[in-house]
């Protein structure tokens, strides 16, 4: 097989493995995804725009992005803290806790949804004390933020952890011997080193939160205009056989996720350049 774009190698199997890869990728991912754009092309630009920007859709974008942003920021702060504690300190139960950080990746979203709702509803372990001080956690926007924080929890921890582990402690020692205080060392030495990883984890958590469905719908109450996230609005429109409306909003979501994937790729390239250089 003489493919022009490939460098010569003595290893066999390029043709068949690449063939399987491209065929399966096209069949499962690329063709179905392009079908959305193909179907949407049957709408005129005006129709598409009015469907994608109807008041209920706009309210859902505001809620989905707002709540995702808040939860990703929470995960940024606590993720760095958890990564720091797991790498630098030792305490009993640390290894178990370390592997449990990945729980939100492994736990099905509907399980997370009903367990968070049970925790934060009025009779729940946490809902009751919160209600006593006048905070309504379940069936509110706060509930959405809680669910999205759960879902995005592992990202910042897992991007920052390896960078902290590989960090050269000599830099900190040098800074200390030159008279820098602990706070100065953190802001001038540690923070700049982990910043690309922190931002990558933040962007991943944000991207995951914007599209999240299962863990949110149980706890959010799902009131149109108030606590209705964008993925739920798509499902509602589908159940009403409003395919055009569902499609228009789905295209908005797809374009945002492509943009975020682009940003995440750029951040990751920045990360590997940092650690390589």
């Amino acid at each position, binding site marked *: 097989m003489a493919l022009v774009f490939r460098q010569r190698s003595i290893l066999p199997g390029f043709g068949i493995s690449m063939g399987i890869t491209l065929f399966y990728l096209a069949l499962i991912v690329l063709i179905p995804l392009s079908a959305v754009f193909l179907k949407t092309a049957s709408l005129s630009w005006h129709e598409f725009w009015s469907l994608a920007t109807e008041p209920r859709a706009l309210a859902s974008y505001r809620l989905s992005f707002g709540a995702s942003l808040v939860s990703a920021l929470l995960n940024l702060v606590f993720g760095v803290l958890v990564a720091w504690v797991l790498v630098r300190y030792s305490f009993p139960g640390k290894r178990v806790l370390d592997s449990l950080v990945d729980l939100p990746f*492994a736990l099905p979203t509907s399980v997370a949804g009903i367990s968070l709702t049970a925790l934060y509803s009025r009779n729940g372990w946490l809902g009751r004390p919160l209600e006593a001080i006048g905070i309504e956690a379940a069936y509110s926007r706060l509930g959405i933020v809680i669910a999205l924080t759960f879902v995005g*929890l592992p990202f910042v921890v897992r991007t920052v952890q390896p960078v902290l582990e590989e960090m050269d402690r000599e830099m900190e020692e040098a800074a200390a011997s030159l008279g820098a205080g602990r706070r100065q060392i953190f802001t001038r030495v540690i923070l700049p080193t982990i910043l690309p990883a922190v931002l990558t984890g933040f962007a991943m958590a944000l991207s995951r939160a914007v*599209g999240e469905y299962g863990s949110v719908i149980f706890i959010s109450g799902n009131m149109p205009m108030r606590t209705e996230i964008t993925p739920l609005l798509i499902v509602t429109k589908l159940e009403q056989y409003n395919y055009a409306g569902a499609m228009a909003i789905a295209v908005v979501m797809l374009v945002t996720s492509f943009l975020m994937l682009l940003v995440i790729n750029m951040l990751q390239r920045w990360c590997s350049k940092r650690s390589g250089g």
Partner: protein
Amino acid sequence: MKRTVSLGSRSVPMAVARTQLEPVLVRRLLIAVALLFLGLFILLPLGIVFASAFRLGAGAYLNAFLDPDTLSAIRLTLLTAAIAVPLNMIFGIAASWAIAKFQFLGKSLLITLIDLPFSVSPVVSGLVYVLVFGLQGLLGPWLADREIKIIFAMPGIVLATIFVTFPFVARELIPLMQSQGNDEEEAALTLGASGWQTFWRVTLPNMKWGLLYGVILCNARAMGEFGAVSVVSGHIRGLTNTMPLHIEILYNEYQYVAAFAVASLLALLALVTLAARSLVEWKSKQHLADVRLTHKEALEI
């Protein structure tokens, strides 16, 4: 006299330790806040699943699994994973062989495209298949003429599951195989092994732990997928309900014990997945150490 202070398992001279550690109070405070955060968002949600499932005792818990709809949901979930996981495994091995072992144009674009299903919302992933195979979809009329049902039936559930678990195996294998390089395979081929022999005897043993973890992760997600499957399933009880969907139905019918009983099985699966991850990480580190040792010995000889 040199005083040392223990830092984890190592001993470090005092002067160095002081620059690396915060005051005890700050350290304890940071650990406490981290534990509080993880307790609130990880341990409590996990604990309440089992607490609610066993709230009315073991009898009520076991009773939940006598419901024929629950049993059929479990069967459908197992069947779906049994189809989706092997297909994604074959794809993952093929993709990682092509990407890690060869240099070609457009490689990073290909990797990005493989990652694509991760960044698409599960609901949109389901919708995509409705727009292809549904009655209003591109192929809808053609399929309806031939009475082939994909949406609101099992093929749709399997397709949506394959889509959302698509990247898992490939993503585990590509970095692993890239870090291992081509030397061993090239040596085997030069010594006269065939391509297949090289793959079975050299490549597969080297990647087995990564492959195992990728498959376990892919399986966990395949059995637990909710959003995408929910859009294509049609929620027909006893027919197109998977375990995660059945949990939603039971919960909405206020059958809390039954809902959490089914949820506890999936939570257990998640815990097994995490344990397997720790084990595989430990094993692959050992494997790497072994390989380094043999290389060193070979060099010394």
